[in-house]
């Protein structure tokens, strides 16, 4: 690869991925409206053009030629505006191209060689273009420029030049360009153009250098031959021609007279054609241009955006975390205990404020709207509908909701899974929908909204809903029931579909149900500290809600002490803390301890028992209860004492601890202000453990 250099490669991947996404959106919205608007065609053309150029620079020939083929196709669409275009096939072709590029980009991202071959796809595109051209020939031949049969093309480059006098000089020049410089004919055109004002007359071979690419080959092979009349001396002309860019070789010879150069004598009487008349069409009105310019002024506002490698942001976040800890270490330094320091307190408060602001700012930099992730789903819906012959409308709301970049990466796959599942299993075929009195096409609503420090992402369909009985049967068959059926709420039963090894669909379709169940969804979501919940009404539809934290790195935590160990509980999961009266404690016949509060009974978890920590405080009345909630399960954690509230930076547990397998109920660890380590309690994990049975 030409640029193994990292930032360049990153930029290439980033930009191409972005362009491909734009492209996909443009195609899908065009397809939806059943036609490609001029604006869409322009956009697609430009995107393909950019991809072509960039991937050629990266020496990715297959991507480049594919982009070239699509560009040609859209060039034709743009210029010729053909009438009967098969939009469906067109979309399919371009989307196939999109997929090809996506796959290649993925390979590059993973450090593999982009070795995909696009020949057949390119051939298909070319064939499509050929058919299009054939069926849309307007009768008038495009090439009307086969004009002259004259052998020598003559340009009288300067009408103002002095009339041929005794002082006039005659030259013959042969120019060779560097190999691989491309567009030799235009290079030649450039040479002729530069002679303007110096030469009186210029004749050249090949004659047609404007729109004949064959002449490029001739120039490559035989060089570009020029016959020049000028009143400038040899040295000056030589110097001028030597300035030709990408010049490999110049032969300049002076002739005695006009007659020595056959071309000059032969063409002496021919008409002059001014170079400046080639090309350069009339300029647009000035007023229009100024208006455009004014518009550009506001366009340029959103140009002040730079793209930054996420790794750098991760590192920045990490450093900020360290800074938060360092700040706590200074301000809460044990050496300061009991000292009267007004000025220090003031300064400390100022520091605290600034650190907090920086932290907020870094967090907000990392926040990315869900729009891109959501919009990807259009493609999935489209492809699946076509394959399964269903009609589904995807409705997106709240796509401007922002989530931490690292979390977004974990959302895409689960979302895709849920949508596929909805279309495959949820939405009925059109006939069945009709019979059920539902609108012809199904509807999937994809919604995101903020809820406290979480984001809810909801996938809701109006399909047939989940079948409680079938789920139970299936769960029984696979031995997935942990509780007596009668004790299970609908929600709990529906949640069974997220268990590994659960699939109600016996047939395996291309999309969902290929062995990989919905458990992937829960796995992914739980990885980022989120949870999944299902609601469904038979015949009316299913709604799946994913609850995802806004960010991962820093949380508000409550530090607690158990024996000599410290733990941190995320504040968001704490409902309250209290000291119970002796007679509030209940022990059931199985020995499970519970605490009664305001007439409700809650299970108790002794942290010292769970984590096997030695402590003096084992009597409930001497310690403290912290009531926590996770996924509608409430649990009272028993600890020695509360130490206080603090922002903590979550760090993953070191690998050697994780590999010991004794990390149940722990989400990570953090450093406290005094430099000691605190373990972060995984409330969801503990709540799961505390379930009876």
């Amino acid at each position, binding site marked *: 690869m030409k640029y193994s250099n990292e930032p360049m490669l990153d*930029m290439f991947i980033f930009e191409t991925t972005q362009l491909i996404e734009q492209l996909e959106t443009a195609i899908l919205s065009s397809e939806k409206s059943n036609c490609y608007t001029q604006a869409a065609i322009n956009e697609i053309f430009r995107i393909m*053009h*950019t991809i072509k*150029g960039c991937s*050629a620079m990266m020496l990715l020939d297959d991507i480049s030629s594919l982009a070239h083929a699509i560009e040609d196709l859209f060039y034709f669409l743009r210029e010729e505006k053909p009438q009967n275009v098969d939009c469906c096939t067109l979309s399919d072709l371009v989307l196939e191209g999109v997929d090809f590029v996506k796959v290649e980009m993925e390979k590059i991202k993973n450090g593999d060689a982009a070795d995909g071959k696009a020949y057949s796809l390119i051939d298909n595109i070319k064939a499509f273009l050929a058919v299009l051209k054939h069926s849309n020939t307007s009768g008038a031949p495009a090439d009307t420029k086969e004009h002259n049969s004259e052998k020598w093309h003559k340009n009288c480059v300067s009408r103002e030049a002095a009339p041929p006098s005794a002082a006039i000089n005659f030259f013959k020049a042969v120019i060779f360009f*560097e190999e691989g410089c491309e567009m030799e004919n235009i290079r030649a055109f450039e040479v002729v153009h530069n002679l303007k004002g110096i030469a009186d007359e210029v004749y050249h071979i090949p004659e047609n250098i404007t729109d004949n690419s064959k002449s490029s080959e001739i120039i490559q092979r035989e060089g570009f031959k020029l016959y020049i009349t000028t009143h400038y001396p040899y040295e000056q002309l030589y110097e001028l021609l030597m300035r030709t860019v990408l010049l490999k070789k110049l032969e300049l010879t002076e002739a005695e007279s006009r007659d020595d150069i056959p071309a000059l004598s032969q063409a002496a009487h021919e008409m002059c054609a001014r170079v*400046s008349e080639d090309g350069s069409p009339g300029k647009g009105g000035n007023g229009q241009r100024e208006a455009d310019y004014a518009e*550009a*002024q506001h366009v340029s506002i959103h140009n002040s955006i730079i793209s930054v490698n996420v790794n750098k942001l991760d590192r920045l976040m990490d450093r900020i975390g360290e800074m938060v800890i360092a700040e706590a270490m200074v301000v809460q330094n044990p050496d300061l205990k009991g000292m009267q320091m007004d000025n220090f307190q003031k300064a400390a408060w100022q520091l605290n404020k600034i650190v907090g602001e920086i932290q907020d700012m870094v967090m907000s930099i990392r926040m990315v709207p869900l729009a891109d992730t959501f919009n990807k789903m259009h493609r999935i819906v489209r492809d699946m509908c076509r394959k399964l012959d269903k009609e589904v409308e995807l409705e997106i709301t709240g796509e401007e909701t922002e989530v931490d970049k690292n979390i977004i990466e974990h959302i895409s796959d689960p979302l895709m899974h849920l949508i596929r599942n909805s279309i495959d299993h949820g939405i009925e075929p059109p006939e069945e929908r009709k019979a059920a009195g539902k609108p012809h096409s199904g509807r999937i609503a994809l919604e995101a909204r903020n809820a406290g420090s979480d984001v809810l992402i909801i996938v809701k369909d109006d399909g047939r809903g989940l079948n409680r009985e079938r789920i139970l049967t299936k769960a029984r068959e696979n031995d997935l029931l942990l509780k007596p059926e009668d004790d299970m709420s609908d929600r709990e039963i529906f949640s069974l579909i997220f268990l590994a090894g659960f699939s109600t669909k016996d047939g395996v379709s291309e999309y969902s149900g290929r062995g990989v169940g919905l458990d992937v969804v829960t796995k992914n979501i739980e990885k980022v500290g989120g949870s999944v919940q299902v609601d469904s009404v038979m015949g009316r539809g299913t709604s799946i809600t994913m609850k995802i934290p806004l960010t991962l790195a820093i949380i508000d935590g409550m530090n607690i002490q158990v024996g000599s160990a410290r733990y941190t509980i995320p504040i968001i999961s704490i409902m309250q803390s209290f000291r119970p009266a002796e007679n509030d404690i209940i022990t059931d016949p199985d020995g499970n301890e519970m605490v009664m509060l305001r007439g409700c009974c809650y299970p108790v978890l002794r942290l010292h028992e769970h984590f096997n920590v030695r402590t003096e405080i084992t009597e409930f009345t001497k310690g403290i209860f912290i009531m926590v909630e996770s996924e509608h399960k409430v649990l009272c954690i028993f600890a020695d004492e509360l130490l206080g509230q603090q922002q903590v930076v979550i760090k993953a547990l070191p690998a050697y601890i994780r590999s010991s397998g004794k990390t149940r109920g722990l989400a990570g660890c953090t450093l406290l202000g005094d430099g000691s380590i605190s373990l972060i309690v995984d409330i969801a994990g503990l709540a799961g453990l505390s379930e009876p049975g």
Partner: protein
Amino acid sequence: MKRVLVVDDAAFMRMAIKEMLNKNGFEVVGEAENGYTAVRRFKELKPDVVTIDITMPEMTGIEALKLIKEFDPGAVAVMVSAMGQESMVREAIAAGAKSFIVKPFKEEHMIQILNKVLL
């Protein structure tokens, strides 16, 4: 050190050109991602040479070239073109571009061209 303004709608291309130039003793003083910004940046920076991509959104490289030439007839511009844009390159040269280069290009070609047009 010669001061260069790099105009291209693809950030990747800008980066690629910038790196080539920086390595070879040019100073990239500015970048622009469309014709409008190119014209504005040119007026602000008055670079020794400007490289202009032809196909760009908002305003094409050729329109930008014309406005730049209107502002400063002595402006030195090198067009960056893709294959298959012969007619547009021709138009650009007629409109006053000093030279052009075709993507994908080699570093030495780019440098040679810039050195020549700046003679």
